[in-house]
């Protein structure tokens, strides 16, 4: 049975539509996905059905059309999703699918035309569709390519000129006769000195393993070569070029998530810098590489790797960041606010803790960042570094618009205890925001000096302090109890004993706080005093006193 001509055209049209659909589907779904598999199988079935009646399918490709057997089977005047134009622009003028077409081949063909669409933006890509098809070496898909573009910018007449010129020299007849005469002389068959020895099996095996080894990544080799080129440099131009290539490698590798290569390159670069035989000029250029890795461009790439699903092993990151200089601080802070994952932010913070030590001023200057969360991170980093020179910068940040930053600053000042910190913290105890006041109290507690104690006692003694929330008061008393000395003991005992007819509720709260903290101070001498309050009517005071007694009796 044969297909009628019209039916034939209809089948090809449908097949082409299936092909276009498959092209889209394969772009959307990963290999092995049920939809991917079904689409491919459907298309292959269409081809097979066509080949039940025909030996091959030849499509002539125009800019906007595809023609089969003199009939137009596809037309698209637009540029979008125009499969004809897509094939045409890379020079393909005809495609033939043969009857023996394998499903595997069809899949590979689709993969090529999908890849090409993805690469449309990449003007510098070396591979065009023809190259990709060629590499597949299909047996049952043939194509005709218009190679005229190859002749652009090429001297088309080169062949004729070269052949004419080289042939034109001719052969001197006399010389030829001389050759003949020399040849005739002693016409005894001489054994060839060179004999052809085919390679032995072992040699082929050896070669096989070398070829296997040869397929490994060549980046390491390239780096070795670039350092050799650097060492062979003659003059500034050569040095400049070499450094430019090394920078390119760093950028290229990081763009592809390859931090190992960069570490390898930087290790070699460090070796050159440390080598006493390296000239000052060479060192000057090599240093540029280290400056480069701290630029925004490179740090952004590092950030992308850290944010990626694969991330970077801590040790590897450290090996990289060990090469970073203080100039990397600003770019690192910049990406700190842009990173998406907690893991990545944590990595950058750890890096900044290390690098920040190299230039406190540079790091502290980042406290002016407009993003509150970044400022808070920097305050944290400064605290982790623990350098008191940061206190001045922190004090300026005390008035930050965001309360979360202020709290972090207060905590940091408390832990760092630098000059001027206590005074500022003292002022914060009067802040209108309770969180700030509590944070300040904690910070003052952390400072732990007599002056700090004095400030805290003074604040707790003030009339307005009594008006504050119970939890805030409790926190302040608890902080005070850290001193565990006679001053504090007397002060707390005094509060507990204090009677008031006005504002009794508030007074009970103060007394309860004092009782609780006497338990915390841990001096058993106050037990008789506490027993007195263990059965008072006020429930809060009674319970807290009982807790304090228990604590003291059990020596906790």
């Amino acid at each position: 049975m044969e297909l009628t001509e019209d039916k034939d055209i209809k089948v090809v049209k449908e097949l082409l539509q299936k092909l276009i659909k498959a092209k889209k589907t394969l772009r959307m779904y990963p290999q092995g996905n049920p939809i991917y598999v079904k689409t491919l199988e459907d298309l292959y079935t269409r081809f097979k059905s066509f080949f039940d009646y025909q030996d091959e399918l030849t499509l002539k490709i125009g800019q906007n059309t595809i023609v089969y057997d003199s009939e137009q089977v596809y037309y698209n005047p637009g540029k979008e999703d125009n499969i004809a134009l897509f094939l045409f622009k890379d020079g393909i003028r005809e495609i033939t699918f043969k009857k023996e077409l394998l499903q595997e081949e069809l899949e590979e063909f689709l993969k090529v035309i999908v890849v090409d669409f993805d690469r449309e933006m990449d003007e510098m890509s070396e591979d065009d569709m023809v190259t990709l098809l060629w590499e597949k070496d299909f047996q049952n898909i043939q194509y005709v390519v218009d190679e005229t573009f190859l002749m652009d910018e090429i001297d088309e007449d080169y062949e004729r000129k070269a052949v004419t010129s080289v042939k034109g020299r001719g052969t001197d007849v006399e010389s030829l006769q001389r050759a003949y005469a020399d040849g005739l002389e002693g016409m005894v068959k001489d054994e060839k000195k060179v004999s052809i020895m085919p390679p032995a099996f072992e040699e082929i095996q050896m070669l096989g393993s070398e070829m296997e080894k040869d397929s490994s990544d060549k980046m390491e080799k390239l780096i070795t070569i670039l350092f050799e080129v650097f060492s062979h440099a003659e003059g500034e131009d050569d040095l400049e070029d070499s450094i430019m290539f090394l920078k390119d490698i760093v950028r290229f590798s990081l763009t592809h998530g390859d931090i190992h290569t960069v570490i390898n390159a930087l290790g070699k670069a460090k070796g050159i810098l440390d080598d006493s035989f390296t000239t000052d000029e060479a060192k000057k250029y090599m240093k540029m590489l280290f400056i480069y890795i701290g630029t925004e461009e490179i740090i952004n790439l590092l950030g992308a790797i850290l944010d990626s699903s694969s991330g970077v092993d801590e040790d590897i990151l450290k090996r990289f960041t060990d090469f970073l200089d203080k100039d990397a601080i600003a770019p690192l802070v910049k990406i700190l606010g842009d990173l998406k994952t907690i893991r990545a932010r944590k990595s950058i913070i750890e890096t900044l803790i290390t690098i920040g030590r190299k230039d406190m001023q540079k790091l502290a200057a980042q406290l002016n960042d407009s993003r509150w969360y970044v400022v808070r991170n920097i305050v944290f980093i400064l605290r982790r570094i623990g350098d008191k020179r940061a206190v001045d910068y922190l004090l300026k940040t005390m008035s930050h618009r965001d309360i979360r930053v202020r709290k972090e600053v207060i905590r940091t000042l408390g832990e760092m205890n630098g000059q001027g910190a206590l005074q500022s913290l003292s002022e914060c105890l009067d802040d209108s925001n309770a969180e700030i006041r509590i944070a300040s109290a904690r910070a003052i507690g952390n400072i732990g000096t007599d002056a700090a104690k004095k400030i805290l006692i003074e604040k707790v003694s003030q009339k307005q302090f009594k008006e504050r929330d119970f939890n805030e008061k409790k926190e302040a008393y608890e902080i005070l109890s850290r001193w565990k000395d006679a001053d504090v003991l007397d002060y707390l005992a005094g509060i507990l004993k204090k009677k008031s007819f006005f504002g009794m509720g508030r007074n009970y709260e103060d007394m309860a706080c004092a009782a609780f903290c006497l338990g915390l101070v841990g001096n058993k001498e106050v037990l008789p005093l506490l027993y007195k309050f263990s059965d008072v009517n006020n429930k809060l005071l009674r319970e807290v006193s009982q807790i304090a007694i228990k604590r003291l009796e059990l020596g906790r």
Partner: protein
Amino acid sequence: MAVKEDRELISSAKDIINQLSIILRTANIHSPSNIAVTTAIEKYIALLNPLIKSERSILLELIGEFFYINGMRIRYSLDYLINFNFLVREFKKREIGSVIFKDFMNPVDLQTFLKAFIESGFSDTPYDTMSEGIDALSSIKIDRLKKIKEDEDVDTRKIVKKTYFTAVAYIQGLFSKIEAGERVNIKKSKRIVEAMVDRLLEEEQLLIGMTAIKDYDEYTYHHMVNVSILSIALGQRLGLNKKLLAVLGITALFHDIGKIRTPYEILNKPGDLTDDEWKIMKRHPVWGVRAILKLRGFDSTAIRSVIVSFEHHIHNDFSGYPRVSNYMDLDLYSKIVCIADQYDAMTSSRVYSRIPMPPDKAISIMMERSGIQLDPVLLKFFINMIGVFPIGTLVMLDTKELGLVFESNEVMGDRPKVVIVIDSNGNRLKGPVVSLAQKDETGRYLRSIVKTLDPNKYNINLAEYLL
């Protein structure tokens, strides 16, 4: 599933060729009744019969350098290289173009086939002997190797020439553009090399023949293309696939790109180079690295090109240049290009020593460098490829004719095709092209080489005869 079946078929097809080669090699040593042979036969039958059952018949064809089974070209890896090459040689020797296995195979039929195959190897008319030997068999038939028709040959030569000169013109244009600081389209280099790979797979000898002409004005451009062709040809012998051959071809094409910075006067100096000039000349591998990276960035082919450009003069024992410290092994492609480069440079005029060598002399010298400058195994492959009498060798024949080797003979290395330039009466000719494998009715060879001469010594313009 169809795909799985196809894959199994391809795998079986490979085994069919491999196992046939094994049987024939075994049968060359032992008699057909020897247990080693009979075991191999049984194994082969076990392989063949299921396929015959599903495919009805198995057609094994030799087209060019490749085997096809039922119309499907069979690709092979290095593991199969020896056996595949052996079978290609043996088929060509007997002028067998195809064997068809049909019906159900049995050991007796296969033993008859083997016997005929081995006996035909000693015959002067091997195909006919073979054909007669299996005449009674209905399950195995052979067909003669298809000869290329004369007019097709002419067209093929035209295509090969066009491929070659397009490549040279491209390199010339590339140099001009780089010198002018213009942007270069690298896609073209890929397409040009792809065309060379295609031509090489189809017409290896013709394309290699193009590299034998060394008298062009623009030595550097031709040298770069020649090295690319010779490298691809060697790579093909090693079983590299098309994609890898293309990469090898590109790296070879760009191997001397560093010479773009070498002053013209040095590059084309008619006499010997001074020490200082040599020093400059030796900078080209390093300059090549820079040129390629500026041109192409870091895609895998560019990286490979950088490596080859840098390493192609270092030599196997690291005695060459540039001198390197703490260096790793040389790249496989660098070793290949190094061999192709040395051969082409030695057989050309206007380079380094300025004294061009006849191809056979160059091969002799390269053999002396085996294991020192050149990788010994790759060199063996290269010499096998080029032949004992490379294209362009001036040969004196026992018929008192003087000729130039026109095409190598892969099966019989000492019997290439020769273009006669002086006949037995001492008259100058431009042809005919004769095959030294031709015999008279008594089985004696019509012509044999008795002597090789240096065509350069006599200023013989190879282009006049080979183009």
